[in-house]
C-alpha cells in the first residue's frame, strides 16, 4: 500500500504504522495532491480506509450552491460540512484571509452501509489552527 500511495501525484512521503493502522501522507511542497485519489488508491491496494483527516491552508469561498468551501488551490476546493466551526468561518468567505484547518474528509459509514469511494469528499472542520 505504501508504494501504491507513494506513486500518486503530489505525494512526497508515505509513513505506514502497522500497529495502529495509521497512514501519514506528506504532500510535495508544490504538488497538488488529490485526497479522493488517495482514498481510491487505498481501496485499490486492498485495505479499507476507516477515516481520512486533512490539515490544509486556504481561503474560505462560497460555492455555486451558496455553501461554504475551503479553496486550497485555484482548481481545488472542498465543500464544508456545516458545524459550529464552519459557521465561525462564514464571515471570512470571499476575503483574502487564509485559514489553516484540520478536518475530517472521510469516515467509513457505520452499520451495513457500503462506502462509496467515488462520492465527493466534504470537509468536516475539527479545528481551526490559524487565521491570517
Amino acid at each position, binding site marked *: *500500500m505504501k508504494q501504491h500511495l507513494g506513486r500518486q501525484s503530489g505525494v512526497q512521503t508515505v509513513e*505506514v504504522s*502497522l500497529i*495502529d*493502522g*495509521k*497512514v*501519514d*501522507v*506528506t*504532500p510535495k*511542497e508544490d504538488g497538488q*495532491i488529490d*485526497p479522493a485519489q*488517495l*482514498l481510491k488508491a*487505498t481501496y485499490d491496494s*486492498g*485495505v*479499507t*480506509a*476507516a*477515516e*481520512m*483527516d*486533512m*490539515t*490544509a*491552508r*486556504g*481561503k474560505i469561498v462560497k460555492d455555486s450552491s451558496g455553501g461554504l468551501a475551503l*479553496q*486550497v*488551490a485555484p482548481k481545488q476546493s472542498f465543500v464544508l460540512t456545516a458545524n459550529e466551526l464552519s459557521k465561525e468561518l462564514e464571515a471570512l468567505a470571499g476575503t483574502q484571509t*487564509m485559514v*489553516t484547518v484540520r478536518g475530517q474528509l472521510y469516515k*467509513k459509514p457505520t452499520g451495513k452501509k457500503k462506502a462509496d469511494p467515488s462520492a465527493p469528499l466534504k470537509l468536516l472542520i475539527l479545528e481551526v489552527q490559524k487565521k491570517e
Partner: protein
Amino acid sequence: MNTRRLALLALLVSIASTAAQAQIKHIEMRVEGMT
C-alpha cells in the same frame, strides 16, 4: 543601490508569496485490514 533594493524587494515578495500559498499540508488515514 537601487538594483540592490529591487533585488531585496523581489526576494521578500517571493518569500511572502510562498508563505501565503494555499495548500494541503498533511493527510492522515486510519485503515483496516492491513497486514
